């Protein structure tokens, strides 16, 4: 043991950070960076192909290969994808779907995050008999395949009179976003010092007062994380959009798939790739802007309570 301790202390003198000092051009370092770079190139390749293809015209696509940069850059595919691409009979571009997706995403995110935050707060500070049982079933419910609940949900939406409206999609997103987001908020509120809650209670604050005056001002980080998860999840949804939104309200993902896969005749790969990039733009921007928060959100969302 004594020997080990000495070795340790020597080691800590030699390497203060605890890591083995590495020479810049040691073979292992070169191998390490080479592997990482090759892997990174592989992951970037599809994005590169999308961008390059969307900037070529069709003759260039047929002549060249998919990795070659465009000889003559054209933005026409982007214009066409946005405002003229056809989904079946309708040829008004993917912009229609874009605005439908915006109309679906904004209320869905606001409502689902609002409900999840109140649920999480209730489960952390105001437990009642059975609240934990509800929560456990809610978490298990997250793993039930959506297909099992689809048809009864269609009936419910029809009975509520909102089937084929964006409100049906909003409701479904709120329901299925509830487990993970409630879990995030519950764990976050549970990590706050309980003295805050007790002091507010002693001062006579009730359920909503504590929530709005004490908890909300402190929970910006978890709100951001939860919103990132919801925005990307709802924007990327396909299944619920197809079933509940109705033909008039198809979100962007559904419209994109229709443009690319349902069109008869010549496939316009450049227009398709521009439309694909436009559809991916919103979650990509959210991802790049939020950076670390996105990673934290995913890691946090994965930690089961």
């Amino acid at each position: 043991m004594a020997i080990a301790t000495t070795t340790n202390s020597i080691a800590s003198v030699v390497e203060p950070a605890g890591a083995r000092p590495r020479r810049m051009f040691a073979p292992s370092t070169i191998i390490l960076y080479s592997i990482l770079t090759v892997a990174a190139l592989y992951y970037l390749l599809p994005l590169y192909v999308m961008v390059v293809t969307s900037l070529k015209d069709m003759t260039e696509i047929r002549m060249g290969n998919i990795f070659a940069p465009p000889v003559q850059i054209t933005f026409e595919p982007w214009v066409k994808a946005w405002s003229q691409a056809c989904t079946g009979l309708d040829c008004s571009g993917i912009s229609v779907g874009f605005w439908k997706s915006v109309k679906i995403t904004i209320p869905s995110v606001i409502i689902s995050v609002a409900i999840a935050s109140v649920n999480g707060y209730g489960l952390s500070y105001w437990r009642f008999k059975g609240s934990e049982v509800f929560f456990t079933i809610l978490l298990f419910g997250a793993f039930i395949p959506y297909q099992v609940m689809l048809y009864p949900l269609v009936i419910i939406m029809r009975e509520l009179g909102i089937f084929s409206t964006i409100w049906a999609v909003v409701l479904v997103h709120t329901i299925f976003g509830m487990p993970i987001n409630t879990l995030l908020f519950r764990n976050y509120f549970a990590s706050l010092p309980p003295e805050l809650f007790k002091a507010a209670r002693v001062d006579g604050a009730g359920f909503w007062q504590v929530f709005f005056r004490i908890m909300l001002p402190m929970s910006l980080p978890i709100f951001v994380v939860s919103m990132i998860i919801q925005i990307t999840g709802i924007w990327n949804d396909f299944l619920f959009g197809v079933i509940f939104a109705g033909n008039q309200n198809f979100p962007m993902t559904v419209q994109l798939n229709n443009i690319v896969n349902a069109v008869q005749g010549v496939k316009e790969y450049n227009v398709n790739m521009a439309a694909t990039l436009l559809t991916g733009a919103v979650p990509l921007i959210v991802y790049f802007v939020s950076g670390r928060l996105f990673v934290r959100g995913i890691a946090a969302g994965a930690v089961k309570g």
Partner: protein
Amino acid sequence: MAHAGRPFGLLRNLNAKVAAIPMMLTVIVIFIGCTLWTVFYSFTSSRLLPTSDFVGVDQYSRLFGNSRWNQSVLNLATYGVCVLTFVFIIGFLLAVLIDQKIRFENTFRTIFLYPFALSFIVTGLVWQWILDPGLGVPKVLNDLGLPGGSLALLGDKNTVIYALVIAGLWQGTGLVMVLMLAGLRGIDSEIWKAARVDGIPAWRTYLFIIIPMMRGVFVTTLVIVASGIVRVYDLVVAMTQGGPGFASEVPAKYVYSFMFERANLGQGLAASTVMLVTVFIILVPWALAEFRQKRS
């Protein structure tokens, strides 16, 4: 937990209960009610509309006698085994590499994870394009005079499922990497010092010390990835539409098709019930193991 543990009457803290109504409704009506409804009507002869005409296990025997369903189960199994295996191996290796106190850690992590921000529809369409036999990678290989020029992954019923695996891996590996990285960072650095002092090579330390210590992370990741695999639908719709033939059909798509396109509700409900039972058979043992471990 450190909460006021006062006894509550039925009407005490009414606000808290009112606030929990959305959650209670979701649990009772959707997660429990809808699931029971589906199981119940899977034993009926419902076609366009649900009817209470009971036919016993007729729908189920028809289901397992349907080659399209059996094919879709087989496809999902192939897809699932391949994706699970490689997503864990590649995700863990990338996490280990990134964990070597490298420069540009953020850049590499960002690059590996960004596909996860994209939808399966976008992923499917991109890979459909890249794997296009006439203009994509096969043509490039052909032009370069390399073997693989006749590679038509998407058009061949024996290989199409592997094309889906490639796309699925591209989209999902980043998530596993991030989870594994979080797990690696959670391990006490003293462990590493001790292993180094004892002269254990790094790969053995990972294999026999670090991985067993990360059991919790592995289980969580497995549950997340597996439940995503069972649901896979968008990717298939975008990339192959289940074809050629039914060579890339999956259960989720079978259910959708019988419920909403072919007006054969009973069959769709039976298929979705089988999905449910499968998920619970896979999920429950893991969940129980996790909860039990936490309690002790």
